[in-house]
């Protein structure tokens, strides 16, 4: 999609794990674990958008938060711009976070209601000692203009803005410290479609102008498709399939990906397709199924699936990986 070859990896995630303890008893000892993220590997090249898609509870948000170490990973490595950031001290982490930012899902919960927009957007500038005083004001104004807001918005409070405008403020705050990578965690799922379109277009324009790299997390496959160069599909704490957008839409290797694609309602009554509806619910990540985690719901599962966990490996074309013993078979 872009002219410059995407070679250098800005971010590499290696066997990332996050197990949340479930505490019980008088002493509050961990009695069990929620295996929210259980061994995730992927990389993001400079300038591209990687989409992370999956249903609720599959661990996609936890992956996003672990990358910024907003949630401390249990195990694994996170290489950001060639440097492992897992063991960095908090003071060093602040410096790294200037280069990697996040936009949260809920624009109502992620902005401090007692701060003016100038304070909110200016905070990263102060924190990273980028600007203060009059320069700070000018920088904030530049940032607001960038996301389509104006000077008279500067001294207002978050409650005076609509959902779409608040999400723009969140984007402006993320852009303040001139980051290279932005994790977008469901940035449009609380917005209406007409406002969602405005926000998605803004994000695309910003990416082109500021040469940003995005990790776009969403449950909405249509939005992911619109935004991403490569797409990773997660199920119950693991990536089950990863490939370039065009390849993934051309041919889905994993049965879960196939079912996910079939489940999305298409806004066109003239469009007909085969549809297999998955049975059952997503199992709990406390006791994930043995072998392939998808096997209890998989319509084509064989005996091997419940015993041997499939590895995420390339099948037909380079760069298109899937974790399935029967990869490529149609459900």
């Amino acid at each position, binding site marked *: 999609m872009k002219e410059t070859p995407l070679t250098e990896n800005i971010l590499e995630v290696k066997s990332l794990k996050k197990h949340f303890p479930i505490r019980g008893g008088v002493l509050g000892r961990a009695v069990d674990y929620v295996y929210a993220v259980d061994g995730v590997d992927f990389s993001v090249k400079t300038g591209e958008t990687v989409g992370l898609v999956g249903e609720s509870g599959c661990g996609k948000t936890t992956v996003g938060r672990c990358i910024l170490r907003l949630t401390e990973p249990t195990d694994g490595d996170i290489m950001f711009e060639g440097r492992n950031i897992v063991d960095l001290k908090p003071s060093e982490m602040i410096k790294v976070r200037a280069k990697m930012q996040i936009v949260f899902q809920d624009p109502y919960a992620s902005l401090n209601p007692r701060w003016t927009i100038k304070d909110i957007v200016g905070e990263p500038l102060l924190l990273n000692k980028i600007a203060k005083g009059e320069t700070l004001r000018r920088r904030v104004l530049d940032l607001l203009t960038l996301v389509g807001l104006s000077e008279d918005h500067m001294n207002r409070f978050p409650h005076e803005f609509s959902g779409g405008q608040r999400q723009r403020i969140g984007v402006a705050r993320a852009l303040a410290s001139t980051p290279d990578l932005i994790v977008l965690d469901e940035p449009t799922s609380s917005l209406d*479609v007409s406002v969602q379109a405005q926000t*998605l277009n803004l994000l*695309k324009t910003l990416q082109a102008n500021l040469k940003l790299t995005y990790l776009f997390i969403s*449950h909405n*496959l249509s939005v992911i498709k619109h935004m991403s160069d490569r797409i990773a599909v997660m199920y119950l704490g693991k990536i089950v399939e990863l490939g370039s957008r065009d390849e993934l839409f051309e041919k889905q290797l994993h049965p879960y990906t196939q079912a996910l694609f079939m*489940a*999305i309602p*298409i806004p066109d009554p003239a469009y007909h397709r085969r549809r297999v509806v998955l*049975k059952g*619910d997503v199992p709990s990540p406390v006791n994930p199924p043995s072998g392939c985690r998808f096997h209890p719901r998989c319509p084509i599962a064989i005996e091997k699936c419940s015993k041997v966990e499939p590895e995420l490996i390339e099948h037909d074309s380079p760069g298109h990986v899937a974790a399935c013993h029967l990869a490529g078979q149609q459900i």
Partner: protein
Amino acid sequence: MPEAILKIRGLKTYFYTYAGIVRALEGIDLDIYKGETIGLVGETGCGKSVTSLSIMRLVPDPPGRIVGGEIIFKGEDLLKKSEDEMQSIRGSQITMVFQDPMTFVNPVLTVGDQVSEVITLHQDLAREAVETKIDEIQDKIVQIDPSSPDRQRLMERVKELEAMREHPPKASRGEIKKAALHRTIDVLKLVQLPDPEKVVKQYPHELSGGMRQRVIIAMALSCNPDLLIADEPTTSLDVTIQAQILALLSELKKKIGASILIITHDMGIVAETCDRVGVMYAGNIVEISETKALFKKPLHPYTQGLLRAIPKLHEDIKNLEIIPGSVPNLIHPPSGCRFHPRCPFRMDICDKEFPPLLEVDPGHSVACYLYPEKKR
């Protein structure tokens, strides 16, 4: 022309708040035909949920009030009914499935208790009670030794009960309870809940979101309603579960023949489930048509914008078209057509007078001055 089971004419619902009067519905006209699935689609705050609450007469009062119009259901105006009369209609003839299944189940009652409550409230179970007894005895007969004298006695009892079927005696409380539970299990089977005998003894928190929504649908269907209103029935569910629920709804519609009103913001759901669809904007229905015609040839500039603003899975678009601005505040709605400040085809008349909803093509009505009324 199919028969309309619900006719809404000029419905106005306002909310009286400290900030001012919110004109949530400003004159809605809508017909729902027998056996059809109709969708109401629109963005947050356009009044689609208020429409459904108004039909059920469940608008919270205060601050809300239905200030005008009529809702004709089976020839009678629901707005003229007393609260008692409404209660016997709600839950039996018109039922509702809500967005968040956890909020609308009672957390301290078992699934069986809740569903059977609806059934006992709205149905005369005397006949059911007799049927249940017959079933029970027949189960016993199968197990009993064929040569024993008891068997003969039980067979006679069955005959006795079968004779009572047409004019059942008044059932006792215990019998009603048993019969209701019997029916509950039947309805839970209808909504394809696995292991309904176990589910009736469970509490809502033991079920997953998809299963809870099935329980709610079971409750709504337990009294064979004429109209089922589903207000964002799948919004809180994951896509694979959503696909299950939507498949279930369309299958059930074929079985029970009720009309369904689906309220949603998702054009995809409309396209896949509805026969007809109404598009709402800021308290008005701006366009209504058969689903295929609407997607093929959207007439109202808002519908056109909405359809172009969705990222699509099945086609490639470089840049999404946007509708500039945002949804207006309904305390001070724009004059004339409420869409005119965002409309790319705005004309002089648009901010002066509200365009009426007129039939432009057969079965396709739109409220917009761009289209002259079809000459009849």
